[in-house]
Structure formats: C-alpha cells, structure tokens
C-alpha cells in the first residue's frame, strides 16, 4: 500500500514537472521508467488526466515503443544486439549461449530477479561486433567466455 502511494506520488510529481513542455508525453514516460524501472499500469490514469489525454492514448504510446515496459525489470537489463553487423560476427551463437546461461528467453527475467534480457536492433558499436549493453555499460567483441565473466562479475555485485 505504502509502495503504491509513493509510486503514485512519483508519477504525479514527474508528470506535473514536465507537462508544460511541448510534446511532453515521451519525456514524462522516460522519467517515470528511469525512476521506477517501468511504467506501472496505475500511472496511466494520472498521466492521462494531467495531460488531458484519454487513457487509451497514453497506453497506445507506451505499447508502441519497444523501450517502455509495463512490468518491473530485473535488477540489471541486458540489451543484446541482434542486427546484421553482429550477425556477421556470430551473434546468433552468442544469443543461444546467453539464453542458455541465463535460462531465459528475450523479454524475460531470471527467477532470482537479477537479470532481464531484451533484444536490441543496433547499439552503434558495429565496429566491435557482437555487442551488448547493460545499463550505461557497453561491451564489444563479446564471446561466450567474456559474456560469462561479465555476468559472473555483475552477479557478485547485485
């Protein structure tokens, strides 16, 4: 209950701070996801009422963009590149390894809540494919072995 209340007040605070910007909805959604990790369903009526939009419009925008999520992510989200340059450097094999190592598929979270896995279509690091991103940290020329050591290191941290 307390958690819901504080979530709601965060949503309200962010929305009110940004709603006067032209085209405010994306900046608002970004700030909410940045603060909470996702965009909770009960934030939709708040945003809709503040921006004078319908709830359907707000939901429509959230669901259109791959980056916005409506469920809580794991503590760390791994964005693994699936695009052509990475494919040319063996990303499909890496992808199999990653899924096996974490025992999850794309858009899933490990049962212990530590890692979520999301596909991404190009990280702009095509000069060191295959690549991935975890938070603001970027990794190039990722091999099965280097992936394992990154995960082991991060697991110890989380």
């Amino acid at each position, binding site marked *: 209950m307390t958690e819901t209340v504080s979530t709601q007040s965060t949503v309200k605070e962010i929305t009110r701070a940004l709603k006067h910007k032209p*085209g405010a909805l*994306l900046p608002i959604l970004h700030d909410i996801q940045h603060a909470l990790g996702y965009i909770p369903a009960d934030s939709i009526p708040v945003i809709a009422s503040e921006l004078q939009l319908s709830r359907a419009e707000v939901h429509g925008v959230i669901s259109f*963009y791959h980056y916005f999520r409506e469920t809580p992510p794991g503590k760390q989200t791994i964005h693994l590149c699936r695009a*052509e340059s990475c494919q040319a450097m063996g990303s499909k094999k890496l992808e199999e390894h990653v899924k096996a190592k974490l025992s999850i598929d794309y858009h899933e979270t490990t049962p212990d809540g530590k890692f979520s896995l999301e596909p991404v*279509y190009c990280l702009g690091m095509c000069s060191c494919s295959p690549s991935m991103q975890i938070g603001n940290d970027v990794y*190039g020329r990722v091999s099965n072995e280097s992936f394992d050591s990154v995960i082991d290191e991060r697991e110890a941290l989380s």
Partner: protein
Amino acid sequence: MTVTVYVPNDSGALALGAGRIAAAIDKEAQKRGLDIKLVRNGSRGMFWLEPLVEVETSEGRIGYGPVQSKDISGLFDADFLNGGTHALEVGPIDEIPYFKNQQRLTFARIGLTDPISLDDYLAYDGYRGLKNALAMSGADIVRHVTDSGLRGRGGAAFPTGIKWNTVLNTPSEQKYIICNADEGDSGTFSDRMVMEGDPFVLIEGMTIAGLAVGATQGYIYLRVEYPHAHRALNTAIAKAYAAGYLGDNIQGSGKKFDLEVRLGAGAYICGEETSLMESLEGKRGLVRFKPPLPAISGLFGKPTIVNNVISLASVPIILDKGGEYYRDFGMGRSRGTLPIQLAGNIKYPGLVELAFGLTLRELLYEYGRGSASGRPIKAVQVGGPLGAYLPESQFDTPLDYEAFAAIWAVVGHGGIVVFDDTVDMAEMARYSMEFCAIESCGKCTPCRIGSTRGEEVIKDIIAGRDLHKNIPLLRDLCDTLLNGSLCALGGMTPYPVLSALNHFPEDFGITEQASAA
C-alpha cells in the same frame, strides 16, 4: 613536465575497455610519481586498435594499441610517456595510412580534441562558420549550403539547400530545426561518433540552420540506445548556453536559438522524419502522409527542417570555408565527403571519411584489409537494414548515389556490413522481413501485413516447399511492398530481400533459371 595522454571516451572504445585503461594509466602514473594530464578524446575511428592510447611527444602524437590492462605496467617500463618503443606501438597516428589517406572535413576534430571542451573546439576552428553566418542574411547562408551540393546524409540524399530554402520561404511565426539522431541502421555509427566525439559541431550546425531559416527552437531526437552521446550532448549544450552560443542573444547578435535533446524509445521507425515528428509531439510514431512536406507543415504543424546528424555537422565547415570548398570534393552529383563506416566481418573496422567516388573494393580491401575471419567476403550490405546486398561482382561500383541507384542499391547513411562465405543469404532475407514486421508502425497494409507474410514465404522457401510457386509469390509481395508502402521501411525492405534472391539464388535452394521465373 606534464605529459598529455589521450584515452578515448567513445563508446566503441569503452566497449573494448577504454574506461578501465584510463583509470589504470592514471593509477600507475600516480604510483610512479609521474605527472600526466589525461584527456578523454573521441575515437580516431580505427577500432582494431582500440583502446588506442596516444601520448603527446615532440615527434607528434604516438599511439599504442590495442591496450589491455595487463599491458599498462609494461608501457610505463618502456617509457611510453616519451614515445618509448613497445610491442603495441603504432608510431605517429597521423602517419597511419588508414588515417592519413582520409579527407576529414566533418570529422576534422574527432579524436584530436577533448569533445566537451569548448576551448578545444574554438582552438580547432570551431564556431568560425557561425561567426560568418551571423554576418550574413538567411538567404546567403542557404545559398552557401546549396552551392556546397550537400545532400541529406541520413540516407535519402535530398539536397539540403533546397529543403532549407523551402523553410526559409514559408512564412511562420514559429519554425523548428530537428536533428534526426535516431541512427538505427546496423553498420552505422558515424552520428554516434560525432555526438560523442565533437558535440559542438552539431550544435553549431543546428544554430546556423536556425539563423538561416529564422527558426528559434531546435530539437535533437536521439535514440535511447546512445546514453554516452546523450551525456556528451547535454554537457556541450550547457556549455554553449553558458558561453552565449545558444540562448536569447547569440554572441551579442540579438538572435535567438534554443536547443534541447529529446530521447526516442527504441522504435526504428522514428528515424523516418514524419514518424519522428509524431514522436516528438508525444504520440505513437506513426508515419504521416506526404504532402504536406515537413518543410511547410512539420513539427506542431510549423515549417521544419529535419536533417541527419552528419548533414548538420557538415554545415559549419561549409560556412567557414564556403560552399565551393566543400563542393570540390566528390564526383557527379555526389559532392563533398561521406563518413563511411566499415562494420561486421572486416579486419580493420572503423570510420573512413572520404570524398565520394572510391570503389567498394578499395574500401573493403585497401582500408578494411578483407574479412576478420580470413575467409572470402561473400556479400556486403550497404546502407543499413533496408540496403541491398551486393555480391563480389559489384565491388567495383564507386560510392556515389547515382552509381548505386543504377545497380538497384543505395548508399544510405554510408554503413557497410561485411559477411564472409559462411553467411546464408536466404536466412538474411528472412531476417529482413522479420525486422520489418517488428519495426513496422502498422499504418499501411503492405508493410504491416506484407512483412509477416513475407517472412512466412521465405521460411517455406528455406524449407524447400513449392519453390515454383513461392518464389514468384515472394517477388509479387515485394512488388506490393515496394510500390504500395507509405515510407521507406516497407518500401525498401525488398532491397535486401530481392538482392539476396537475385545475387545468391543457390542459398534459396534454386537455380538461377528458377529465380528469374
């Protein structure tokens, strides 16, 4: 004496450990009581050497790379701070042919300077274009851009000057400048390198665009996948405001230009200009019908310039040195230089800025030195996920918009992704349809439905089912996508699909005779 050491802060270098290397060099220098100044520069674009550490010496900047953490103490032992000999030494950076032979106009500063230092920017010819622009009329600025022959570097290659002229001549109390920084094409990273490696050049280019057409508000629509570019841009924008290069009174001229970065949210389609504007307005990124052109009715219904990062970042040098200077590079109707990006399975991946006209073969073998795997290069995809796959027989095509159009291919944003002979082109064609289905905005039927049906048909072909029916069906479907889609996503997905089918029919399990059916 303080020695200046450069370790790149470009995310391509960070992805290979540059952050750790910078910290380790700093620590080791302190331990040894040596006085160094550590500068986090942009990348030179020679990624096989990253992390590339440079040391300022009396002989110029000497490079060492690729440096790993285990090499640090050995580098100090070899007196690398005085340019000492070491196994990783690559000599003076300026003498490396890959770098030396380039014609860097847009990338002139990248790798040389501290990207977020305004002093560095000014010391290396920054804001000279703006100074000239402030003394000109809007029409004169536009004339310089038109004279330069610059065409949109995002991929569509529309003449920039003509677009600007339309906005200039459309009266409105409010106009906008949008920088399309939604660089989603696989194999491209030149926008990212500019934003991380020289953010002020983009800010200057957008400011000049604002002065030219009378726009007072600019937006950089940046993809969320680029957090390092986001940070660099915001830092540089704050410094530009503080120094009077942005705001209500630019350098005392009484002219106003405000600039803000807005983040995308992982939708490839928002790189399409009308979808991008919908997104900036806070909506789903659905593609708009054209006309009206954005130059007449764009963001919030106002006249709007939408240009790619490289187009806008090329403007300052055009205004500094004049349209003719820029125009003297290039061939035919492709004027100036193009920052080419060598990616995928290539030995020397990186950024090569050259005048238009070099052949693919020269780029792949003289610059790129062949595949990274050492196997023969089977195909290259030029121009991102909507670009055609080219076989070896087309490698003598010069990089030129018209020469590529003549072989049913596109230069696009200048990204080249290399594949060796282990690639299955039918699988790449299937992936193109899958990508289109994932990223389609859903507004037009050919793209929304056609991409899903397309993937199904290619799966059937891969499984060897009814080729005599399914190959013509795929061609027919591609024809519908090509001619019936609202924008380039549906309209160009046939490029990779059909080029794969036409050039590599054997990968689809068919003879060349059947593929022509």
